[in-house]
């Protein structure tokens, strides 16, 4: 913020300067770069450390962990337009499954789940935000892919939500949950732009030689309105999005999601700038701690009793209740994960809070012991 205001001020000052020296014919092009210089130099004379979110400092050698601790807040990139995962509620708060991961990391690192500065990002802008240092952590329903992991300079954490792209059509058109993809031949298929879904359906239909008309909209709400009215025959996006729409819409019973095996794998999880293993460990183990807590039945309600009375050694270590805890070695406070569970909750709690109301089941996102894919390494 310091940056922005300084800039605004600089700009106002330029107006004053321009008015004062109006007799002189200058061009705007000379005025343009000056605010830029202001940004680089502004924080120095100001109140020293006042709110300067310096972007480049940590690149030299230190980890993002040190930067975040020194800053006192976590800059987290989130979605603001995806019900359940990241949105703004009526009181202007960021809420959602992905948002809670940011809060969990903040609770682990800073001991305060509210010490997060959320940066709402569009799908197109998110990776540049990581690379430019604008955000420390990207938690915005981002699919872990090979190119993003390597080419785009990101590192991905453990998958927090196993998703897969599916399609939705109306039962009245003869679709069932087992309909094959070939049934969409000749259909108008609608989806949202700027994500992998567009590419997936293009590739999948091309592989089967299907001739479809693809309409891509910026906003999934428009897609849904068109689907309801019949202007779109079929919609496609991540299964979670389809399920939540189907569950919350009055007409949802007449729709069906297919094929039963999604046309793509969409492992969604947190990402950060690559080659920062200290920071990576922190994010990774925050997620694992939430999963282990669920395995052991530790919830935000009973965590205090669990600390006083640990069920086993692993839980004691994880909650910082025993001497051989490992958090301190990671550069975190000993009670880091206690704070996570206390302030945010375990994985199941977070899921139940944000996704269950939308009609999503645990499915693949159940614990491994319940037949799901969530499997955390042991904390020892």
């Amino acid at each position, binding site marked *: 913020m310091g940056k922005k205001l300084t800039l605004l001020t600089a*700009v106002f000052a330029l107006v*004053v300067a321009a008015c004062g020296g109006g007799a*002189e014919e200058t*061009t705007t092009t000379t005025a343009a770069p000056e605010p830029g210089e202001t940004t680089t130099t502004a924080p120095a004379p100001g*109140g020293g450390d006042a709110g300067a979110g310096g972007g480049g400092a940590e690149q030299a050698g230190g980890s993002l962990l040190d930067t975040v601790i020194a800053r006192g807040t976590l800059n987290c990139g989130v979605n*603001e337009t995806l019900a359940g995962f990241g949105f703004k509620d*009526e009181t202007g708060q960021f809420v959602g499954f992905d948002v809670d991961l940011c809060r969990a990391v903040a609770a682990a690192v800073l001991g305060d789940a509210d010490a997060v500065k959320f940066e709402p990002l569009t799908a197109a802008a998110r990776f540049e935000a990581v690379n430019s240092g604008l955000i420390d952590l990207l938690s915005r329903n981002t699919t872990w892919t090979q190119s993003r992991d390597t080419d785009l300079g990101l590192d991905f954490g453990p998958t927090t939500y196993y998703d897969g792209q599916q399609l939705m059509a109306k039962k009245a058109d003869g679709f069932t949950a087992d309909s094959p993809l070939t049934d969409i031949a000749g259909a108008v298929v609608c989806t949202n732009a700027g994500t992998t879904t567009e590419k997936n359906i293009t590739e999948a239909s091309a592989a089967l030689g299907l001739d479809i008309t693809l309409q891509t909209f910026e906003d999934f709400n428009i897609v849904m309105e068109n689907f309801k009215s019949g202007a779109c025959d079929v919609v496609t996006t991540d299964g979670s999005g389809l399920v939540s729409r189907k569950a919350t819409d009055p007409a949802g019973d007449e729709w069906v999601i297919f094929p039963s095996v999604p046309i793509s794998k969409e492992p969604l999880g947190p990402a950060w700038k690559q080659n920062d293993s200290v920071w990576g460990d922190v994010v990774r183990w925050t997620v694992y701690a939430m999963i282990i807590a669920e395995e052991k039945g530790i919830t935000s309600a009973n965590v205090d009793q669990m600390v006083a009375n640990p069920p086993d050694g692993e839980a004691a270590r994880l909650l910082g209740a025993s001497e051989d805890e490992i958090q301190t070695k990671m550069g975190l406070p000993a009670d880091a994960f206690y704070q996570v569970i206390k302030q945010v909750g375990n994985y199941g709690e977070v899921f139940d809070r944000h996704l269950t109301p939308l009609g999503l089941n645990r499915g693949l996102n159940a614990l491994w012991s319940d037949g799901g894919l969530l499997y955390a390494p042991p904390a020892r």
Partner: protein
Amino acid sequence: MTVYVAPELKPPEPPPEARQLGAWVWLRKNLFNTWYNGVLTVVLAVGIVWGARGAFAFLLSPDRLWGVIPPNATNYAVDVYPRPELTRIWVTLAVVMVLVGLSSATWRPTGKTSWGTILAVVRATGVAAFAVGLLVPPTFVGRNPLLVGGAVLVLLGAVGIRAAGPAAREERLPMLGVLAGVLVLALVVIWLLPVAKTTKVPWTIEVLVLAAAHLVGRPLVRAVGEKTLKVVLSFLWVLSLPVIYLHLERKPVIPWEVVVSWLPWVLPVLVVGYLAILYASRAGRERAAALNALLVVAALAVWFVPSPMVVRLLMLVLVGFTLAAPTFASSGNGRRNFMVGWSGATFFLVYFVTLAVAETGLETQGDFLGGLNLTFLLALGGMLLSFPIGIMMALGRTSTMPIFRLLSTGYIEIVRGVPLITVLFFADKVVPRFLPPGLDFDGVVKAIIAIALFSGAYLAENVRGGLQSIPKGQYEAARALGMTTAQMTMLITLPQALRAVIPAIVGQVISLFKDTSLVAIIGLADFFRVARDIVPNQPASLGSQIENLVMAAVVYWIFTFSFSRASLRLERKLGVGTR
């Protein structure tokens, strides 16, 4: 036939017949005066009724999720602005109210109206409400209240007009009083009906502040003098914009320790400024030019040596002052004005920069500019910044210097030739590519600059039109008085040109206000994006796309329509643009 009749012998008679025959004659005259007009009327009436019924049936159907709008009112207004800090927004609104109140006392709108007009408005409202009541679907709960209320209003209006008789047409009610009455009525409504439940106390306070400022303003005018107060208020209005926005974003407390730490830097510059202005205005042109050259070098040099930002900016301002000093401050009076101007500029610069580097003091979750707050910031900030750009480009385009003319013309034509959305994409996606890594502007700042650059080109054309409309004699007279080009421009031509194009500029502000909705496409959370993307994606509001769009359209319409009406009135009052 005609004979001379002394006026006092024959009092003007109202045309009673036309009024008494009333509706029927009116219909014959205005709707069915020819056969094709009659057909047209019938066709149109059927079309309007059909369309309105359809629209009401759609908008008032039980499927519509109107319930999601009221709980999100704060989101539409300010997006994620921290709720405990909303007081600041009320305070800034109160500042505006004070200015409005003082201005209304100073400029004293003289318009008058009559009871007849007011009653006619009441009657028309009743007719409209009754008509709406007839057109809405029968299932709609508000149908009977609309019908009954409409009928009551019609009766009230009609009876009132009849009872008042010819006296109803005397224009003796001051417009201001009527406005005050409307405000009181609005207060009564928000206290009695369940609208604005959570904000009725602040709204009441705002209205009281407005009234108080107006009442204080009246004796103030007498004490200070109208002319002085007008000048002061004009300045305050311009300054209020940056002050308000700084207070929305900063802790409204000046960090004194920072100010004190700057004093050793600022005070010398201030004194040097006085001396330089004095010298530049007194010494001959050549010496002043030498001083200016020195100052320009110094002003550029401070950017390369470690020094507080405020000094760097101050030096730039100082160069502006001294450059203009030999031309404009050669008289004693001009010199005094320049000294005062320099002091004021220093004060406000220090004030702004101090606040700018201060902490926000906001317990915030993220970027807190959004909603209508951001929409207004974009429109006002863009407009304010577009002025220097537009004026410079207009001067450049009308200049005799070919390279400047070429550059300005090229800029204006290129910017006017492309859509705003490409300029916004340019600022959002292309500009970062040209900047060193790690240096990027905030999205809001980029959007403001893009809007200003875009709007500046249009403004330039307006100002150019104004410059060209100035009679040649003005230029020649200025030359004959021995004015330099700079003096002529600043004192003679530019003021006239700007005055002549006020209507065009106001029109541009209005269209700018609408155009700010495009920033939604590059992902800024302005009012339109909150309504289009953010609210309809809350789990509780899924599927409320159309309701939000309609609401947004209505809100934009209310603002733009009232702006354009106000600007029409301003235009008439100034009597410009009609020449």
